[in-house]
């Protein structure tokens, strides 16, 4: 391929990405400023004058900050415990602790509901033991949201921090102590600065995920609104103009936070310094201390696994058999059989499968093209391509759902708009866009690690383009391809936040069927769907871990 042709292809890719990603977002901005009679600030004024809007914005902001702080408070000590202290069962528990990441957000929320909700196991147990008339608590409001966030998001801090600790050069700690620094000073002056990039990365990820979080506030929020739920309810009320302004506000909040963060922490420069062997494990002093730590760690692991176990247990509860008992009286695999046997139950499974597959395939294709053009051909549009591929990561899913609904609700070929709302195309398209950051990042990294000399070597050995791609490039990219594709696939499979706004009855995905089953009281069926999603995610997680250990 000539440089000229690659250059043109680069701009073509920019055009496609801009149409799918930047254009709908711009449209949201514009439509918030337009009324039936042309340009107007009417909707913005309405937004600004309603205290509920400001409360929701503030709730989104403080909940995200608090989620980051709380997740860090749990994840960082855990990382130190599992990376630096030796005790029986360390390896196995170290993996189990990362399990909350395996739950798609909605499934995690549902599992929490079954466990700690007012009719959950914990509540019923307490009610039964104390002989109370009513459930002892209601899991509702900001505290409930915060708990769910902390439960699922401490994993970011845990994984990032553990990775950084394992990369740390043991000689550095020895140097510090040789220079007379005590444990406290070493921690403050050496270890923590070394962890800074990891902590900053985890904090950003937690903040952005919380800001975009929809499942937890939707299920547990009750009357308490954050921006994502506020948008959905406004939309359900048919107040589209106001929804556009709200969406713009959330988008600006997310992008503003990201920009602020980038300014405060411009690139982690310490990450690459580490070379050498990781510091040795500290052995807890006495036998008692070691047994104590091990027991505490096991207890913790059980606590973290309880939601998963609850989900599994509830999935075997037949419809209508569990009413007031503290523990379900009957178990049977009937719910799973129903998923396959009843066409109405099977449909969402098939829908999610084909939509996630199509979206992932398309996202991988685009990411492959992006990687080849940006890394290999270094086309002029490289920065734009990379920026556009990453943009959906910074924008909450709710915003994209609204934006796509806006773009594809009007037939206007000259404005590159057509009607896809209500068709089977919109959801896979939304999944595709949401998948681009993950697949894009994986494949760009893959291409960057791929030695360009490999392709030259193949050429010098007489292999043509097709054979070089088939025998050399794709196999060498396989780990990156697998990592990006599987992560994208499970994310799409479990998607709730965009689905709830864009689905039609015929294309309803698993997440909406879970919601529907819950509303009808079919907790067992809802749990069975959840277990399937959890299993799919676990498989992907295991594959990813294996790929990493091989690389």
């Amino acid at each position: 391929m000539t440089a000229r042709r690659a250059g043109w292809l680069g701009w073509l890719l920019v055009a496609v990405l801009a149409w799918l990603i930047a254009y709908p977002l711009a449209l949201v901005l514009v439509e918030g400023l337009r009324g039936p009679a042309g340009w107007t600030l009417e909707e913005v004024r309405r937004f600004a004058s309603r205290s509920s809007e400001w409360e929701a914005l503030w709730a989104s902001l403080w909940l995200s900050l608090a989620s980051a702080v709380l997740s860090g408070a749990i994840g960082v000590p855990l990382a130190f415990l599992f990376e630096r202290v030796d005790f029986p069962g360390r390896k196995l528990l170290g993996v189990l602790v990362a399990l909350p990441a395996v739950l798609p957000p909605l499934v995690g929320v549902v599992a929490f509901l079954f466990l700690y909700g007012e009719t959950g196991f914990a509540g019923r147990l307490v009610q039964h033991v104390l002989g109370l008339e009513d459930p002892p608590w209601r899991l509702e409001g900001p505290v409930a949201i915060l708990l769910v966030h902390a439960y699922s998001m401490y994993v970011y801090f845990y994984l990032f921090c553990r990775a950084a600790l394992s990369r740390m050069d043991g000689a550095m700690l020895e140097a510090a102590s040789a220079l007379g620094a005590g444990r406290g000073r070493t921690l403050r002056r050496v270890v923590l600065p070394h962890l800074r990039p990891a902590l900053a990365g985890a904090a950003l990820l937690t903040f952005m995920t919380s800001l975009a979080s929809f499942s937890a506030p939707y299920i547990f929020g009750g009357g308490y609104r954050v921006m994502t739920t506020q948008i959905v309810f406004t939309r359900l009320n048919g107040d589209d103009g106001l929804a556009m302004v709200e969406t713009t506000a959330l988008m600006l909040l997310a992008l503003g936070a990201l920009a602020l963060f980038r300014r405060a922490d411009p690139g982690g420069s310490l990450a690459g310094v580490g070379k050498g062997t990781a510091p040795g494990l500290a052995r807890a002093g006495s036998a008692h201390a070691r047994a104590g730590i091990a027991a505490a760690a096991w207890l913790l692991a059980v606590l973290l696994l309880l939601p998963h176990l609850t989900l599994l247990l509830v999935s075997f509860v037949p419809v209508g058999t569990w009413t007031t008992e503290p523990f379900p009286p009957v178990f049977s695999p009937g719910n799973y059989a129903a998923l396959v046997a009843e066409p109405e139950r099977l449909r969402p499974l098939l829908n999610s499968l084909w939509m996630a597959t199509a979206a992932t395939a398309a996202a991988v294709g685009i990411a492959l093209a992006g990687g080849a053009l940006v890394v290999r051909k270094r086309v002029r549009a490289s920065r734009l391509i990379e920026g556009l591929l990453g943009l959906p990561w910074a924008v909450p899913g709710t915003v994209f759902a609204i934006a796509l609904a806006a773009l594809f609700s009007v037939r206007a070929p000259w404005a590159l708009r057509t009607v896809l709302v209500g068709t089977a195309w919109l959801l896979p398209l939304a999944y595709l866009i949401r998948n681009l950051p993950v697949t894009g990042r994986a494949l760009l990294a893959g291409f960057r690690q791929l030695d360009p000399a490999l392709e030259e070597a193949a050429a010098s050995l007489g292999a043509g383009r097709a054979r070089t791609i088939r025998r050399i490039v794709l196999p060498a990219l396989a780990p990156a391809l697998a990592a990006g594709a599987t992560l994208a696939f499970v994310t799409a499979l479990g998607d709730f936040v965009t689905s709830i706004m864009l689905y039609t009855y015929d294309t309803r995905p698993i997440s909406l069927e879970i919601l529907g089953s819950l509303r009808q009281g079919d907790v067992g069926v809802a749990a069975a769907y959840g277990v399937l999603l959890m299993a799919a995610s676990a498989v992907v997680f295991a594959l990813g871990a294996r790929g990493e250990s091989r690389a």
Partner: protein
Amino acid sequence: MGFLELEGLTRTFAGQRAVDGLSLTLQRGEVLALLGPSGSGKTTTLRLLAGFEVPDAGRVILEGRDVTPLAPVARRFGMVFQHYALFPHLDVGANVAFGLESRGVRGPELSRRVAEALSLVDLAGFERRAVAKLSGGQQQRVALARALAPEPQVLLLDEPLSNLDPSLRERTRRELRGLVHRLGMTAVVVTHEQEDAFDLGDRIALLRGGRLEQLGTSDELYATPASAFVASFIGRASEVEARVISTDVAEVEGARWPVRWAGPGPAVPGAAARLLARPEGLRLVAPGAGRVGGAVTGRRFTGPVAFFSVLTAGGANVEVAAPPEAAREGDVVGLEPTGADLHLYPAADA
């Protein structure tokens, strides 16, 4: 007419001429070393030969045929890459077989030729090994076997020894030279190490700024360097300010030394000049009238000889090879030519 000819090759990157009108001719079976400091254009020259770069001007001619427009695939020059570029997901055998498969070799013939290529580099029976599990020296040999297996007409080697540690490097260099000569390969080796170039190259092309500075055997480059740059790049040489007396005499700090005028241009009596002296071109003597005097500022012991740093009265730093006991640090000494060539260049020659 040579076997492989480079005709006025020129390649410009962002306004910088990486290779600037380079012309070279290789005979069949000849090994040419491209030597030069980094940025001298040697790797670009090799990539132009391989076809990975397209020249802005000039041609590459193989056996009288212009191969410049051919893509690397069609050119089929064997290449050993600096970091080997072994295919990490293929085992040793599959790496070596790759080029043969491109030529349609299949079945028992394929396994036979893979085994043959591997035994050439002393890796017989290594077919099923994973390349990542091999040592650096073994990887280098797999890369060589892979390049040789399809029997290329020309073998190109990009810094083939730069990733090996010193002891392994010398042995591998010997083996490489033996193998290339035994097979009668026409080869071009890029290196920035003069020892590699001396050892591997039948002739050496010394490049500087994309231009050919001097072409010749290692002896020629050492004994009759065409420029001050060559003299200082090949071997060790100290530089002293001098004045031209005639084509074979120069005045250095009041003393008259026999020299070899190396140009460029004619020697102009009275003109300022630069004298480049090899450590063995001078010896330490007692200080005296009519001799360049100085003080020993350092001594580097290497075994049979030691290298003495001498600061002359005129302020030049000169390195002199002498028996280890010849002087001690701080001694006041005189310098005298040994009779080995001292090379004289115009002062303006940068």
